[in-house]
């Protein structure tokens, strides 16, 4: 997964080319918003809004983001997209509250999956004390889900699907000796072949996660920092 392709990642594109190519930047921003709307929803919920209000707020925010290719008053040079998005959202919430205007519903975001937001939020955000933490946890989860989704897409053929399904429970399992034997038996393969397949799957998942993180930071050197920050967010009590 290339550091060589890094210059095309969305966030660096937004921060560098935003001024000269607003349309491209806006599209990239929209794609990132689509991926990370749930963290914003979680943030809004932790601030005390109900499902309906939180949905409205996030949708309005995203519509405005897409419309303007960014938000007036939010600094795009803060480093990572995660910080930028949260900063922009807070700014937007403040403005909205101050003007007490009704959140407008944007037509551009109708494809987003809002229907299960409450359910997913309830499932994932238990016990998070403050809105920022809720946001960061949901961010990490969304990023990982996206990477795993891409892995699934890469294993779309029936034989690969079967392999992925069989190896999925063992992807993170160290010292899992019986697992490989069971899978080999199930797939009619050898243990050695299963271990090799597992290794390659892990390597690919690792690349995909790093690529997803790379989309949200400005420099390749920040990937590990961002991963650490996300880990810390997940580790917090």
């Amino acid at each position: 997964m290339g550091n060589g392709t890094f210059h095309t990642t969305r966030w660096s594109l937004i921060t560098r080319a935003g001024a000269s190519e607003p349309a491209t930047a806006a599209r990239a921003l929209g794609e990132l918003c689509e991926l990370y709307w749930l963290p914003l929803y979680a943030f809004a919920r932790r601030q005390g809004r109900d499902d309906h209000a939180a949905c409205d707020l996030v949708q309005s925010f995203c519509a405005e983001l897409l419309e303007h290719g960014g938000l007036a008053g939010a600094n795009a040079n803060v480093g990572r997209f995660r910080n930028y998005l949260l900063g922009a959202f807070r700014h937007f919430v403040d403005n909205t509250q101050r003007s007490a205007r009704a959140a407008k519903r944007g037509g551009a975001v109708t494809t987003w999956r809002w229907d299960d937001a409450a359910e997913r939020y309830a499932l994932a955000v238990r016990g998070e004390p403050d809105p920022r933490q809720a946001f960061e946890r949901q961010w990490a989860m969304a990023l990982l889900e996206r990477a795993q989704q891409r892995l699934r897409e890469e294993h779309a053929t029936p034989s690969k699907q079967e392999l992925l399904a069989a190896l999925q429970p063992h992807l993170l399992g160290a010292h899992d000796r019986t697992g490989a034997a069971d899978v080999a038996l199930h797939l009619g393969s050898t243990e050695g072949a299963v271990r090799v397949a597992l290794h390659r799957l892990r390597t690919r998942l690792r690349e995909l996660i790093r690529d997803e993180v790379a989309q949200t930071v400005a420099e390749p050197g920040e990937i590990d920092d961002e991963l650490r920050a996300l880990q810390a967010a997940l580790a917090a009590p």
Partner: protein
Amino acid sequence: MAAGEPAQCPRCLLGLAMTPPPTATGPAAPSIAELQPLFPDYQLESLVGRGGMGIVYRARHHKLDRTVALKLLLPDLVGDPQFVERFEREAKALAKLDHPGIVRIHDFGTAGSFCFLVMEFVDGATLRDLLAAGHLSPADVLGMAPQLCDALQYAHEHRIVHRDIKPENILVDSEGRVRLADFGLAKLLGQDSAAPGLTRTRQGLGTPHYMAPEQVQSANQVDHRADLYSLGVVLYEMLTGQLPIGRFQPPSAKAAGVRGFDPVVMKSLENDPALRYQAASDVGRDVRAAGTAGASGTATPPIPPTHRAQEPARHEAPAERPRAMELPWHAWLCTGIVFLATFVTWLRIDSQPTLVEHLRGIGSVSGNAWQVAILHVPAWLLFFYALGISALSTLRGAGLQVPAGLPLLATSLASVFLIYAAVAIERSDEVTCGFGMILTLLTFLVWNATELRRHGLPSLQRHSAVRTRRHRSARRR
């Protein structure tokens, strides 16, 4: 993993993403754009590995439409014409190796400031990658180890010693087949002490944990048995996930269900090359046998824990210790000759004053010949028996429990007896006595020399050198 299914431990996934990729260590790699002009026949695709031996790229041969691994060796060494000559000579020999368990070399040469090898591309993982997820199962070891042994045996038959067997050099393809890579490169890159870049190469070789003791001591004086030691370390690591360092325990003390492998691994890890396996095919045979024993539930008896802890260097399972009856026929023949010769010799000594004075070669024994014979025969038997066992175990690697210093001691004692016999001939009229002893010793030495010729080992030098190494390694521990 269906959509909506809860994600796996998210922190673990982030941790997975943070672990360094296999290509993250080693020398800085030249970029593909930089290298491409040097290799017009190939399309360089990606960097796949870096290590002490060089940098590996995945590439595609235009005309043959074949994916290959392009390995660049240290750029500094190309300036040394001797190195280039040696490299070409070695590469030519390596290119002749044609075995399904050995990574084939398609081409080699120099390009720009690089020596390069074009090798078969193995689409899979290294054993190191697989071990990163924990130790392997006995079934895995049974699947892989015999393949490794076959490949090694083939190379050894072609007089090529690998010298750097370690999990990084063992590749497993997507079908689970095993291939050995980098044959002979350690020798090539480490041979010339004057070569620039050697230090870096040495550092690049990294951990000496896979090296046989004699290889650590003197890299130039190793034979194929050094590979068998390294193989033992790899087997130990495959079974336990750990390296056999210091006072290590047999694999069965670290992992369940691997007791059958204990004798094979421990014999491979003998410090003394003579006590190790002498051929890779023997290791393969015993690994297979261990698998069969494991499958039928007849594991070898457990090793007492105290023995494990106190005798790390000689910890064969009791089943490995041969009984006296298992000694080859010429050991018994030798003992018989000794017995007869001694008996005939001492029958004639019947007129010397005391036994002590007789032994000192002065005066005469007052006792009768039978008394003297009864006193001497067991001593001679014991002495030559020990000598026989020592020589046998050292020469044939029979795995007997004999201290490495014993052959030296026994041969020294034999020399003393020889001198004593010569003195006896000169000083007394007991000519038969002296001749008997000399004949006995000559018989033994001729037999010993025959064995030496057959196995081509520098007997005494090796014994003493081995003893020194053992002392040193014991001190290191």
